[in-house]
């Protein structure tokens, strides 16, 4: 966290706030409220209102992404490592990836009801493909010589996974998680608009509908901070696990 602490973000934050402020003054419409007013509103409603929404969203994102990881990584590893697996699964992935998951929402609700499950599943469905494609492709870029030491030791697949596939893919995996997190946050807008009264997606959408732009922007700010928090967490993970990459 050394170089990703407050004074890493502070200048950028201030810059963005100034930019926002200037635009809000130029446009001078309630559709772009001044950041001062938004921050004020945020301060007023955070603890009573937004905090609970943020927690709901956080849990759904984490659950969805977690599900995507534990099912996506094994499949991706198999696809990247075993040509045969790839031959069978790649066309299925290529065919199903572009299916617009949002259009499947009615089916999902029909099958999974309107509780927490379909929301998590929707995040899962969208994120898993990104994890899948990124990991599969990055396993394929490992030069085959990299495997020789382990092959020549007669390593089992598990050992190859632990000693080569996983460490080699980790940086790309974290990148794909970064991308997926961003997507997961966007997806909240589909998933948190039905069958719930909580979640940042619900909150922002509701504020929008109510033409309450102050609330809406306060929500956007909080969502960005959630994203920032998740990104920062990934940075920590990367620093910890990819020590060997550190350049002098």
């Amino acid at each position, binding site marked *: 966290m050394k170089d990703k602490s407050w004074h890493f973000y502070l200048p950028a934050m201030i810059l963005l706030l100034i930019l926002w402020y200037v635009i809000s003054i130029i446009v001078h419409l309630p559709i772009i409220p001044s950041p001062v007013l938004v921050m004020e509103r945020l301060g007023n409603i955070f603890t009573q209102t937004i905090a609970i929404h943020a927690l709901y969203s956080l849990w759904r994102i984490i659950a969805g992404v977690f599900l995507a990881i534990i099912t996506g990584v094994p499949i991706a590893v198999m696809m990247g490592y075993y040509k045969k697996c790839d031959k069978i699964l790649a066309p299925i992935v290529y065919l199903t990836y572009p299916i617009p998951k949002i259009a499947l929402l009615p089916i999902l609700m029909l099958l999974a009801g309107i509780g927490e499950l379909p929301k998590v599943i929707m995040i899962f469905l969208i994120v898993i493909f990104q994890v899948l494609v990124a990991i599969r492709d990055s396993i394929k870029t490992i030069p085959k*010589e*990299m495997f*020789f*030491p*382990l*092959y*020549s*030791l*007669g*390593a089992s697949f598990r*050992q190859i996974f632990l*000693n*080569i596939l996983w*460490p*080699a893919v980790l940086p790309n995996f974290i990148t794909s998680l970064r991308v997926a997190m961003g997507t997961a946050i966007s997806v909240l807008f589909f998933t948190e608009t039905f069958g719930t009264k909580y979640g940042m997606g619900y909150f922002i959408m509701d504020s929008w509908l109510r033409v309450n732009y102050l609330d809406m922007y306060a929500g956007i700010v909080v969502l960005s901070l959630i994203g920032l928090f998740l990104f920062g967490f990934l940075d920590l993970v990367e620093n910890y696990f*990819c*020590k*060997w990459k550190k350049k*002098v």
Partner: protein
Amino acid sequence: MITVDRLYVRYDDTNILEDINLNLPTGITCAVIGPSGCGKSTLLNVLAGLQKNYQGLVQINGANPSPKKQTIGFIPQNYGLLPWLTVKENILLGLKIKKEAKQGLPRNLVDNLGLSNLLNRYPNNLSGGQQQRVSLARAFALKADLLLMDEPFSALDAITREEMQDVFIDLWQKQKVSTILVTHYVEEALYLGQKIIVMTSAPGGIYKIIDNPLFSDKNFRDREIFSSLSKEIRNYLKKAGSKNER
């Protein structure tokens, strides 16, 4: 016992190895020497079970080469260290995979190879010669049935090289492990190989197999036969190389 019978390896449409025949009893050390690009590494890869695309019969102790059955200590030309493991972890990798890691780091070996101060470094932060010694340590620590070494001392200075050669000779004398090593140095071949195989290039084949009386003789350079034998091998090498283009 290593048996190779009519071995052919091809990439695309050209033969890389052609009609290789070999019979090496267990416990022998054998030096392979030959022109650049003649297929020495390829031959080692076949024996290590890494190159599976070949024709002909290759057997190690009566079975197909398979690292699952035999313990093979393999030192590839580019050292084959894993960049995300420290030196220590790289050395222990082989033992870990063969489920013998509990015996711990072979301190003696590590000392002899001059690695004691580098144990917590990552390979990327090592010099070429240091990396090569880590690779040696990994293979030697294994107590392998078969040692395959591809130019194992190439990145070492003359003095260190000789020390490492002695480490190997010691090891061999203790464990009598069958060894095939590729080298570019006639002297090295004469010191480390009971048999010396000279290869031809394009396509790679066996030009001559020489029985070497100088093996493991510390003073082999001073023996009478040394200069005649080394001249002979250099001659073979020249002919083998000029047979075709490199």
